[in-house]
């Protein structure tokens, strides 16, 4: 068992989930509360990673963050190292790749809050920030849990972006998915079985938590 890869995978998923919840809540609130037409473009952009092949996304990021572009060179001079083939680069890729898995459950949960309550809050002087913290989050908290779990799991299981952007550097970019790929390539099916079982177990437990949580609260779905 590659414990180092397991630890790195969990670290990557935790950091990505924290960043995406911090960014996803205001973004989802903006999409639900806002009326501007350009928000449709933002929503489409936030959903793009759902349909974009991970390898394509990984390739774009590899080029963007690498020394071929001014942006990549600027980042490298700021950080002292290029983002590509580093843990930080993986975080950037994971945040973009898992963005829809955070934003979409949040948007669904926030949009399910009775608009009459939001109107009442507006009439009583609440701006977007207060509407979000005092109404959308407490009333749509199940969507926050769903967003956190889906983002975490999606990051744990990502492969294409990691391979393209991070390569296979032990302790820096080698995640469980890469380990599994290597084990299969080496015909080490016993080890691959164990790695796959861990990934499967994580997914099953987390999804069970989402659905059991929903039933326990009376079945209101995010």
């Amino acid at each position, binding site marked *: 068992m590659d414990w180092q890869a397991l630890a790195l995978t969990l670290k990557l998923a935790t950091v990505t989930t924290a960043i995406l919840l911090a960014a996803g809540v205001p973004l989802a609130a903006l999409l639900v509360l806002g*009326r501007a037409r350009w928000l449709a473009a933002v929503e489409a952009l936030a959903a793009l990673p759902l349909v974009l092949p991970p390898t394509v996304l990984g390739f774009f990021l590899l080029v963007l963050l690498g020394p071929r572009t001014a942006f990549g060179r600027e980042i490298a001079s700021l950080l002292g190292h290029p983002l590509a083939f580093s843990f930080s680069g993986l975080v950037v890729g994971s945040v973009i790749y898992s963005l829809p898995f955070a934003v979409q459950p949040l948007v669904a949960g926030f949009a399910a809050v009775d608009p*009459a309550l939001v*109107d009442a809050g*507006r*009439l009583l002087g609440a701006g977007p920030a207060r509407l979000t913290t005092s109404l959308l989050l407490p009333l749509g908290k199940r969507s926050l849990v769903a967003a956190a779990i889906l983002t975490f799991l999606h990051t744990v299981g990502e492969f294409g972006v990691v391979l393209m952007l991070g390569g296979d550097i032990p302790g820096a970019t080698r995640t469980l998915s890469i380990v599994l790929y290597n084990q299969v390539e080496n015909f080490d099916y016993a080890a691959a079985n164990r790695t796959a079982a861990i990934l499967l177990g994580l997914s099953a437990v987390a999804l069970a938590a989402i659905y059991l949580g929903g039933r326990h609260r009376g079945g209101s779905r995010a």
Partner: protein
Amino acid sequence: MLEMALHVRRGAFHLDIDCRFASEWTVIFGPSGAGKSTLLRLLAGLELPGPSRGHTVCVVLDGEPLTDSASRVWRKPGHRQTSLVAQQPALFPHLSVEANIAYGLRQEGRDVRLARVAEMLDLVDAADLRDRRPRDLSGGEAQRIALARALAPRPRLLLLDEPFSALDGAASDALLFRLQNWARDKQTQVVMATHDASDALATAAEVALLNRGHLAALGPAVEVLAAERARLLDRLNPA
């Protein structure tokens, strides 16, 4: 004084109203679908028609423009000192009655907030409901609390959309009486939409008769609602 020029299209429905409400208490009377709720939402700033052709929304309160689509003026709902109580109370389900009423008093200090909540609970005769959650309230109780929540920030303009539909006649009359005194005392202008002629006759100094989005009449209740009054009297004295 509330002045408005509203010309809004929603599919097949057209709202065309140019008028001013000078009375302290104006009742908008009309059947369901006449446009009463749309009118109140436009006054409250909750509806913001796009800049498409044919839409004009102008709302002026005491000489101060709240909405003017021509010059792109639109004060946000919470910044026009206007409260709206709808038929559905829309109480925040995760907050206590006290927290619901205090929601619009964030700018006030704690003492003022507590005093205002107590005052509002007394006004709507619901002091014993202070710690309850909305799910534990009856329909009538929830409407009382929604009214208290809307009054707490002391609005200059109070919009009521069939706000007492879940209250029985005696309770509704008593609450209406107290509310009228409160509004007079605080110099709050009230616009109440109803399709109930008895409500309109009980309260109105001025009645706006709304029919299919158009203002059919505006004047004293006894004149505008003469036919409704006669109909009610006929029902009470069938012989």
